[in-house]
């Protein structure tokens, strides 16, 4: 495929235009989106660690940014992304072992991973918020 050139555009099979949006399809797209979000979120992980290794001022600045409105939103989004992507990943590993691929098991796995990622995000954020208020 290294010789592909964008010369004459060739027609592609319709996909998004024709398939009914099923749960498994939506979750597959979400898995990719959360993955990309985490890819860029990893930058914040590195910034946090480098700030800690730099100075108390740098670390405090980072914490100040993290506690800002945008910081809260980003933190919440990354928490959900991490949990959704990780639990979805476990679902994919199960499927990779050729388990749970039949209907209705695949729908249950998909639905279960969605619900558990939402519940865990809320729980972890509950704990985190409580710790933030106390600390």
């Amino acid at each position, binding site marked *: 495929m290294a010789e592909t050139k964008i010369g004459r555009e060739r027609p592609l099979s319709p996909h998004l235009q024709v398939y009914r949006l099923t749960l498994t399809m939506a979750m597959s797209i979400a898995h990719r989106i959360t*993955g990309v979000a985490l*890819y860029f979120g*990893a930058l914040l*992980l590195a910034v946090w660690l480098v700030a*800690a*290794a730099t100075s108390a001022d740098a670390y405090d600045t980072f914490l100040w940014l993290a506690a800002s409105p945008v910081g809260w939103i980003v933190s919440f989004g990354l928490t959900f992304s991490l949990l959704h992507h*990780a639990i979805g990943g476990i679902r994919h590993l199960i499927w990779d072992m050729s388990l749970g691929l039949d209907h209705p098991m695949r729908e249950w796995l998909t639905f279960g991973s969605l619900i558990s990622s939402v519940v865990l995000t809320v729980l*972890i954020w509950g704990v985190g918020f409580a*710790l933030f208020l106390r*600390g």
Partner: protein
Amino acid sequence: MVRTPLGRVRGLGSARSGTEHFWKQIITSVASIPLTIFFIGLVLSLVGKSWVEATATLGDPAVAILLSLFVATNIEHMRLGLQVVVEDYVHADLPKAVLLMLNTFFSYGLGFSALFAIAKLSFGS
């Protein structure tokens, strides 16, 4: 599909290294499960802590080792993941090559920085 005997022995797919990519992604995914649980616990334990307390925790050998493993595992995982995303959506030669390179630079640059920071917190002053 034409497969050479050598290609079959090496387990190379049509993407030249597809099987290796897949296996690396599986390994990093599996390793990431317990490491992520650790990471979430670590972050929660550092909420509301001062710099002095945080750096003491991050410099602790057990924490530093697990956190380093978390970083290293997920750097590879994210690099492989975005490689697939680029290959799925970018088909022209030059943009694809540039984006794949940027992916590698970003992933390893970020990973090296994080690991360096952990090392400095462990050994430096």
